[in-house]
């Protein structure tokens, strides 16, 4: 009898699942397929061909995929290689508290061409729950002073290291990383800064005082451990995170994912001092064979001519930095910016940083098993913006970096109690 097991059946979305099939014919080609429907009804699929062992079994922890959406031994390949039916749709969980993503794993016991899978019934299937928060995590809508966002708290008594979670300036509130961080013991504030509730749609400047208010809010909170606050930030969020680390001494651990070491687009202002953006050269865009636009080098002209004052005085920051770079980032020149920032630190005799550079990883580095979104339609332009990344390498980078991010935050936010002899 054919059996398909996937355990655990209900997990946090950043935890692995063990998939196995037994009772098949020996040395036979079978197909595993995963299907997920997002909250808007968009369907995502992935498939992989495996060969059963001499005893008619396949264990995805050990067996290599022969073809399909990934090849080689990748126990979680079916998850991170999910692809949208509708071209370039990004998978993003909006409701992180009350519902999981349901992922259906299906097994076909014959060697069908891909085109026929949709019209065929699987031999057997199981459905898994992938949650964005652990049991007991609470979500508190934040509307304190100017602040707009959501605070996620781990279950239990006591205080937890506080982290501010910042995404790019696409607007709205993205909550899934904060809810996952809370599931791993952090008090995480998903902080919006544009196009959310009464925040401006397109702010003319980024006021660092807003983010300072967020830092103070967290530190005041009875469930937040001090004295330092961490930041997890990506893209434009990382530009802000870097600025926060420089100006606010309460920021002691800053994770910068694929961010710049200068201001771009919207200027920043803090206590009356304006940091002007580097100018963007749209003519340096490069469009690939399928019409996907790569903006990676659009700051190079300005960068090469800019005086030092345009680059963040990163040596003034007192806390620690973790730079996370996707070397295949096609939207911004992440590797070059991180290298320039760390070189500046080195020149100033600082060793308060770590750089993790991932070959083949793109811009959108997310928690593990998130499918790679290699390009997105830009809101107002009829253009697709490439994020970059090679599927398998990007997945490995997500797995590795997520662990490193948590280790880094714990190391620099939780004081080590040393016994004094």
């Amino acid at each position, binding site marked *: 009898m054919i059996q398909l097991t996937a355990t655990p059946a209900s997990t946090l979305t950043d935890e692995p699942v063990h998939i196995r099939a037994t009772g098949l014919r020996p040395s036979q080609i079978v197909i595993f397929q995963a299907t997920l429907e997002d909250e808007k009804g968009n369907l995502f699929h992935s498939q992989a061909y495996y060969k059963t062992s001499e005893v008619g079994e396949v264990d995805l922890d050990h067996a290599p995929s022969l073809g399909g959406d990934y090849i080689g031994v990748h126990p979680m390949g079916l998850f991170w290689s999910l692809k949208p039916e509708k071209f370039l749709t990004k998978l993003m969980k909006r409701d992180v508290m009350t519902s999981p993503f349901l992922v259906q794993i299906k097994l076909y016991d014959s060697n069908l061409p891909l085109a026929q899978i949709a019209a065929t019934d699987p031999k057997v299937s199981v459905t898994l729950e992938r949650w964005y928060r652990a049991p007991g995590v609470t979500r508190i809508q934040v509307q304190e002073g100017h602040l707009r966002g959501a605070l996620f708290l781990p279950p239990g008594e006591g205080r937890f290291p506080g982290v501010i979670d910042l995404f790019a300036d696409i607007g709205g509130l993205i909550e899934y990383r904060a809810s996952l961080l809370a599931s791993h013991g952090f008090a995480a504030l998903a902080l919006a800064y544009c196009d959310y509730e009464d925040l401006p749609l397109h702010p003319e400047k980024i006021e660092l005082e807003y983010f300072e208010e967020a830092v103070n809010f967290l530190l005041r909170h009875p469930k937040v451990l001090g004295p330092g606050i961490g930041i997890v930030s990506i893209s434009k969020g990382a530009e802000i995170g870097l600025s926060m680390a420089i100006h606010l001494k309460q920021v002691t651990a800053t994770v910068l994912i694929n961010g710049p070491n200068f201001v771009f687009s919207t200027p920043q202002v803090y206590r009356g001092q304006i940091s002007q953006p580097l100018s963007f050269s*749209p*003519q340096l865009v490069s469009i690939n*064979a*399928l019409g996907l636009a790569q903006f990676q080098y659009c700051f190079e002209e300005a960068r090469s001519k800019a005086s030092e004052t345009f680059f963040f005085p990163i040596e003034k920051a007192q806390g620690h930095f973790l730079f996370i770079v996707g070397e295949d980032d096609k939207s911004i020149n992440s590797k070059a910016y991180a290298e320039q920032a760390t070189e500046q630190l080195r020149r100033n005799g600082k060793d308060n940083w770590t750089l993790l550079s991932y070959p083949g990883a793109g811009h959108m580095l997310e928690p593990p098993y998130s499918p790679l979104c290699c390009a997105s339609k830009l809101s*107002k332009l009829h253009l697709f913006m490439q994020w970059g990344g090679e599927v398998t390498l990007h997945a490995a980078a997500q797995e590795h970096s997520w662990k490193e991010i948590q280790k880094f935050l714990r190391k620099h936010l939780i004081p080590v109690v040393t016994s004094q002899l």
Partner: protein
Amino acid sequence: MDPTLYLALHRAHYRSLCQLPMFQLTATPASALADEPVHIRVTGLPPWQMVTLTASLKDEKGYVYQSKAFYKANEVGELDLMEAPSIGGDYVGVHPMGLFWSLKPKKVFRRLTKQDVMNSPFYVTLNLYDSVHVQVSTTDQPRASQTVERWFSGPGVQRVQIREGRVRGALFLPPGEGPFPGIVDLFGGRGGLTEFRASLLATHGFAVLALAYFLYEDLPKELEEIDLEYFEEAANWLLAHPKIQKPGIGVISVSKGVEIALAMACFTKQVVATICINGPNAIYEFPLRYKDLVITPIPSFMERVQIDVLGAMRLRYYKGDARDELNQKSVLPIEKAQGAILFIVGDGDECLNSREYAEQALDQLRSHGRNNGRMLVYPGAGHLIEPPYTPLCYASPHSLSSGILLWGGDPVAHAAAQEHSWGEIQKFFREHLTQTRSKL
């Protein structure tokens, strides 16, 4: 990052610079064969002005294709695409025809192919904008514009619909009495009848039979076997035509068509010059039948399909190994082929391991003491190597399977391969088909 803000800011800044009216855009010739280059020049710009040049085309089904590039005028406000490099956009560097070969469909994965090759050209509209427009909106007005015609046949070329015996296709004849070197033109697994290569070759002095073999008129809807006698019938019919040179013809083929072309070269004496573009030297998918001979196909391994990040299928590793001992009966006995054989290989072919097949075929020739084979390998070129300036189709749906197939190719390298190989194709046929004439 959202670049919309930058674009708005910079557009406003550049607009204020441009109060001058008389920009001139010239593209010559305004009407030409689609495989001929166009010289694009702009004058009357402010010195060092950044401009956007775009090209757009609407195909016969109404699908729009577009391209753009950003250039900087020189110190006297002139721009000559033969000399100036594009700074960004759909291509970078000096590429006088870049706007043509980098045309991209607005609806992704569509492939540009001219259907009516006789009565209408493609109209390509070239527009000049006086600043950097990463995306041209409907309210943007070009400062200068010209439309050029791209024809797939020249004056005097005749098209004759062929329904002789079993043969189905279209014969393209150059103007004049002839006789002309005869060529059979075979496309691949998309079926139907693709005519534009045949009509262009006819414009260059060859008599070309664009030959359909399935999914056309009363031919089978699906390919289930290759009946080589059908192709021999077509070759014989062509050779019997009063305007076709004797005693031998050429065959040009791509992809699946290459199996047929090589089989014709091996088993029929009518074929004396064969061009094989990105195709196998062995029989795959369906058996080949010629009189008593049946060649069974090398099996494919469905499980070896690879799906790329955009969901397109890479079939390059899908087919069984033609060098495997067990598959040798399916490999075409190329040492039996008469005449010359030219393999044209795109090294970036994501659909077939074209280079491997060509190399094996040449090894086979050499091991039998034959030296009538040659290979041109183009690094970075993809599967669909077509006449020059044809936009690169990187992936598109295919009729033999559903889903999108990945063809591959780096745009610049692919364009260069198309330009170079087209010259080589004509040289090869002139050399090997005209020679037969001089032997008479």
